[in-house]
């Protein structure tokens, strides 16, 4: 399997960066996921091959991290933290709000493919709870009103 020139170059660098090749596994999976959208069977076998691992090893790691996915997701993945700090400051309502607004539940994708929704554990932004993450961007101190704005922004972006 061939990735973009840029990613190929990145992989080449990664593979030589660590004393153990396998240490490059997680970054590689993340980059591949960003480019392909999710981790396909083909990506699994390709990366296993590059790092001299078994496919089983690669799958073990993927299944450990909720950030890595093996099914297609929306263009924007909305992750709502419902862990303790966020929970205390209204994360549950926030998540309900998202469900209502997007019309999908946990790990589901909107029919237009623009959004997917996930309820996740602590994303390390407790000081600004409730917090959400959309792809790699954080949004802090979120209220249902703020949430609507954020989603509107992404909806427009997705159209562009």
């Amino acid at each position: 399997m061939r990735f973009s020139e840029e990613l190929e170059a990145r992989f080449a660098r990664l593979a030589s960066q660590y004393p153990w090749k396998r240490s490059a596994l997680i970054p590689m999976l993340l980059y591949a996921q960003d480019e392909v959208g999710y981790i396909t069977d083909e990506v699994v076998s390709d990366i296993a091959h590059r790092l001299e691992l078994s496919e089983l090893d690669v799958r073990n790691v993927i299944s450990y991290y909720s950030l890595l996915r093996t099914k297609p997701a929306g263009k924007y993945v909305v992750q709502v933290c419902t862990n303790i700090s966020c929970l205390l400051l209204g994360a549950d309502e926030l998540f309900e709000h998202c469900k209502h607004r997007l019309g999908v539940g946990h790990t589901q994708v909107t029919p237009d493919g623009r959004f997917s929704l996930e309820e996740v554990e602590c994303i390390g932004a407790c000081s600004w709870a409730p917090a959400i993450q959309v792809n790699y961007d954080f949004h802090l101190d979120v209220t249902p009103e703020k949430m609507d704005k954020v989603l509107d922004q992404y909806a427009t972006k997705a159209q562009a």
Partner: protein
Amino acid sequence: MADVNITVDGKKVSAPAGTLLIEACKSAGIEVPAFCYYPGLSVQGACRMCLVRIEKMPKLQTACTVPVAEGMVVTTNSEEIVQARKATVEILLGNHPLDCPVCDAGGECELQDMTFRYGAAESKYMEAKQHREEQQWSPVVYFDRPRCILCYRCVRVCGEGMDVWALGVQNRGVTSIIAPNKQDHLECEECGMCIDICPVGALTSGAYRYKTRPWEMNHVGTICTHCGDGCKTTLGVRRSKGGMEIVRGDNRDKSGINGDFLCIKGRYGFDFSHHEDRLTQPLVRQDGKLTPVSWEQALAHVADRLKQVRDAQGGSAIGVIGSNRTTNEENYLLQKFARSVLGTNNIDHHRTADYPAFAKAIAGKQNATATLRETMTAPAVLLIGNDPTEQHPLLAWNLRTNHRVHNGRLYIVNSREIKLRRQARAFAHVPEAGGESAMVRYLAGEENYASQIETAGFNRDAMRSFRDAVKAEQGLVIIFGSELRGDDVQALVRFGAGIGAKFVCLGDYANSRGAADMGLYPDLLPGYTDLARGSGFAQEYGSVPQQPGMDIVSMFAAAQSGRLGALYVVGSNPVARYNIDPAALKNTFVVVQDMFLTETATTAEVVLPAANAYEKSGSFTNTFGDLQLLKKAGDLAGVRSDFELIVRIADRMGADIRKLVPFGKGVRADMGQSRGAQSGEADRHMVWLSAHNLEPKLSPFDPEALLDEIERLVPGYNFSRLKLFAGHEAHTFAPEHSSVGQPSAPETIVPANDTLFTSGTLGRYSNAMNSVIENRRAPEEIPAD
């Protein structure tokens, strides 16, 4: 390493520095319960069952991860510890069903034992248990997730122990799950080690699951009947309508030379034994068709015809072919019968290794053969040819363990990229066809062979450093396959002896070595004794023909040209193996003893249904020379042991049975003396015999009577009886004591080429071996044994 002194429960214990606390406790007879810890595998520290209190340490510690330290004071049993263990069991039971009565592991489950001991069946958890459906991963491996306690023993034994790495862990926390390498199924070596090592009923075996209960079986420790390594396998048997059926094979108690290792053949490959095609009635050809007759009729027919041919045409018109799977006693008896009753040296078997050349090369050396156990502890091993992963799975296991646990150095010479190269310090990848033998010459210092083995990947420098490294090794064990024959073996032994090495010659079947040691050769008496030097045997047997007989190939040539009046085949299928046209045998009276109607049996005039090695007692010698006792486990109505059949035929031919099988000698004389002056002697003798598990030999069908004779007459078989009868192996030294003149016909050696999933004729009738998907390679040829 220096010993360290610690105190455990008030007891002084010392153990070498570096020993894990749990092992130190065990050596002092103090049990610390453990789920994830398993000796020989890496430390996991996952289950927290082994908690103990160590003075001066703030919290309870896991005994499986802490090495002993000088002055340590340890408590393994206190109220606090009992509570902690109870809590651990409670957590483990959080997701575990409480239905031991329907679980396949019920009655031999470590979790069940611990729950009984610590009484944690009552749970404080309110959460619903996570249920998942049971999965079948292969014909032999099933997985039931809810029962799994995530000890990771299976993952480690498959990876570290087997070097297969077919099992992994997916997800995390309470949702963790053991996963097979192909997402919904396994592609692996199907050894069943993962099932065996699983402390609970999460992994179960397709062969055994839900068939019976451990306490409903008899457990008989005997020797595997497949490859030449001789694993001990404990067969679970129970009564069935045709006798005793074998339902399970394992070696949980780790007795025997294999510890708890078994490959798929030893663990599941017993099912040929109750295959529906088993012969259970003697057959005699009538009007061109093999027809069931009584034993009386069949035996009389065989004896009459053999006698006729012998008396009319002489012994040289009779050929005898023995087996790689019959016992030493049977092989010995067969050649004795051939030589002393039939009066012929025309005796041979399907040869899979050049044992005679090995014996000739090694003759006169002291203690020059390595035992199987030594392959696990030797500081260095040189392996030339063969692929032990496929053909000698236990040896492969030992070499891997040696590498992993004892830092043994492995050097490999092979024309194929065999799997064991992953453990090798150096791998000489030599060209096919003759590469191994050229490499031996090169090792021995014949520089001109270098050009024959040089390849892009293995250049002169690599060659030289390989040789230098091997030559610098002390305590080397050299193991070689059938790629090396004749002069190559001679050259190798000369080279190895120069550096003080010990040797192993690899033969393919369970008793290939025994067949060779017991003299199933036309030119060699038992113990590789040259015919010219066999006066000891001649004296004992009455007479032995002086001329070397015909080998297997010449026998069929003789049959073709009408010079072979009779052929007696015991447990072999040469017609298929050597591609013989059945028409070649049309003028020969053929008798076959076998379990199945093989290609050879279908050409016979009489077929006698034989018992297999799981259905009789006797002994096997593995390819290393380790002698071990078989115990009768299975039983099938209608079959008889080859031993009994040979004796019965000899009897009907009018031979003196007491000479053939010296039963009732010695011991019996004492037995009658229950009164009179000597009575006490006799009783004491009986007491001694039974105390040592010895039995008086009172029957002509008792192989032990011949074991005595083997011990007495076969050079190199002066083994320790006590060891043997206590269930251990006893190393023998026939090659060292041999007197081979001119080793014959290396061209009659045809390797079995078995894989992990085939095993000669037995493999053809084993559903377990045929059902796994790894067994896709079409058989190259039809096996002989």
